[in-house]
């Protein structure tokens, strides 16, 4: 039996008056990769940005409903969003390393600005994070050069390492490969599959093959509503809803 890591209950989200998520409810399982698919503008990114409470930093953005991580509602008033964000790492669509920092600084900055000072431990964590992101071998001799000197794919893996350095339990990927070439994409997909040993992974993608390759579970969102959710295999081969089937066949999207 799978263990539920994240329980989403009647989640709705708005930008101003515009509602982008409508009463979404489902469970996300521990140590699995869950893909969120759906056409552009259907609320995929907004959805995962609710899980690390990043949606609310946009002016006039609003959230309603509950998200339980390990049975604790992260929208309870006593919850500090900073603590949630340490527990829930995020990798963005465009590689966004901090451009004036070195590769090494990029990896440790999260720990450093959260008050972590032990230099040796930082070193150790940085190397481990880079290894897990599959980047260490490529950069071990140039940890002190600027992060922007790396290729796009390497930058994205650096961003993964940066998120991993905080030892998050959950990692969100927001279309992490949409700006990358196929080889870089393959490397990142490998990393994602390895990450699920110790993390719960959620990936937004509009590449259905990618969802099929990496995800154990897939959720299909359409116009802010959850249409269908289930094991990736059955969702792709035997969709229960007509909308899902049409989307997978490429009728729209």
């Amino acid at each position, binding site marked *: 039996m799978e263990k539920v890591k994240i329980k989403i209950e009647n989640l709705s989200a708005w930008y101003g008056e515009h509602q982008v998520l409508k009463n979404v409810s489902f469970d996300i399982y521990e140590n699995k990769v869950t893909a969120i698919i759906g056409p552009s503008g259907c609320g995929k990114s907004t959805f995962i940005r609710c899980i*690390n409470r990043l949606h609310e930093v946009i002016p006039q953005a609003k959230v309603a409903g509950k998200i339980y991580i390990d049975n604790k509602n992260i929208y309870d008033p006593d919850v500090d969003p900073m603590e949630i964000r*340490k527990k829930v790492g995020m990798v*963005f669509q465009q590689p966004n390393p*901090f451009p*004036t920092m070195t590769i090494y600084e990029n990896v440790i*900055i*999260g720990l450093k*600005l*959260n008050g972590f000072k032990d230099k040796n431990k930082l070193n150790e964590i940085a190397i481990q994070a880079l290894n897990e992101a599959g980047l260490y071998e490529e950069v071990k001799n140039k940890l002190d050069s600027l992060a922007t000197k790396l290729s796009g794919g390497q930058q994205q893996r650096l961003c993964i390492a940066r998120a991993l350095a*905080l030892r998050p339990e959950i990692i969100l990927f927001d279309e992490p490969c949409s700006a990358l070439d196929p080889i870089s994409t393959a490397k990142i997909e490998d990393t994602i599959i390895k990450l699920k040993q110790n993390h719960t992974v959620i990936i937004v993608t509009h590449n259905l093959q990618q969802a099929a390759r990496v995800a154990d579970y897939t959720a299909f969102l359409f116009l802010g509503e959850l249409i269908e959710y289930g094991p990736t295999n059955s969702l792709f081969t035997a969709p229960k809803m007509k909308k899902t089937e049409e989307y997978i066949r490429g009728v729209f999207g």
Partner: protein
Amino acid sequence: MNRKLKDKIFQFFIYLSVSIVSFVLLFITGYVLYKGFSSINLDFFIRLPKPVGEEGGGMVNAIVGSFMIVGIASLFSIPLSILTGVYLSEYKNEKFANIVRSSLEILSAVPSIIIGVFVYGLVVYPMKRFSLLAGSIALSIIMIPLIARTTEEMVNMVPTTIKEAGLSLGIKNWKVIFYIILNTAKPGVLTGVLLSLARVFGETAPLLFTSFGNRFWHRSILDPAAALPLQIFVYAIAPYDDWNRQAWAGAFILIIIVYILIIVSRRLVLKYK
């Protein structure tokens, strides 16, 4: 007229304009360097001005004075204006931010001599003395709008995803702003600071009413103090050949300082582009 001919004519005018503009710059620089270089000697850097009628002497007090006036002005203006710039960018749409932004815009257009008169009324008159400090206050008023507006623009140019990346690491908002966003905007902000320094190093008018000038050492920042542009002004209009020569030397030093500031700021921009 055929297309190629039009193209040639257009090109000719472009080159002509560029040549005129660069000629003016090269001519001014060249002439000052030539006149200044031949008048410069070690005494210029280590001696005080000689009394009227005596040959020789230098401008050491004006060189030190200039650096002190600008240095103290920087102490006031750099932190104040960078924080203001960050505020303007972070709270873009607040009403108060709009008021501050317009005020800065107007302030940056106020002729510098008026700022001099203003500081005269505000600082010099109540204290009953001209002072280096008053000069610094005048120059910092000139620097603040320049640095604040560049900081705002540079912080605005930092992509939202950088800020979100910082927040997504669980870092507190103010730390994201100061350690990540400002750090990302640093080359641009520094460029703004350097250019504002280059601007105020050469300011003369506001100093006439404030630090006033001094043929001797200032003993504290509450004394009237010499500054390079002031000294150049006095020496250049004096009827003595030796003073005129020293004015050229002063101009030479001033132009070198300003060029260094500009070149360093150019390099900063290029390094991170």
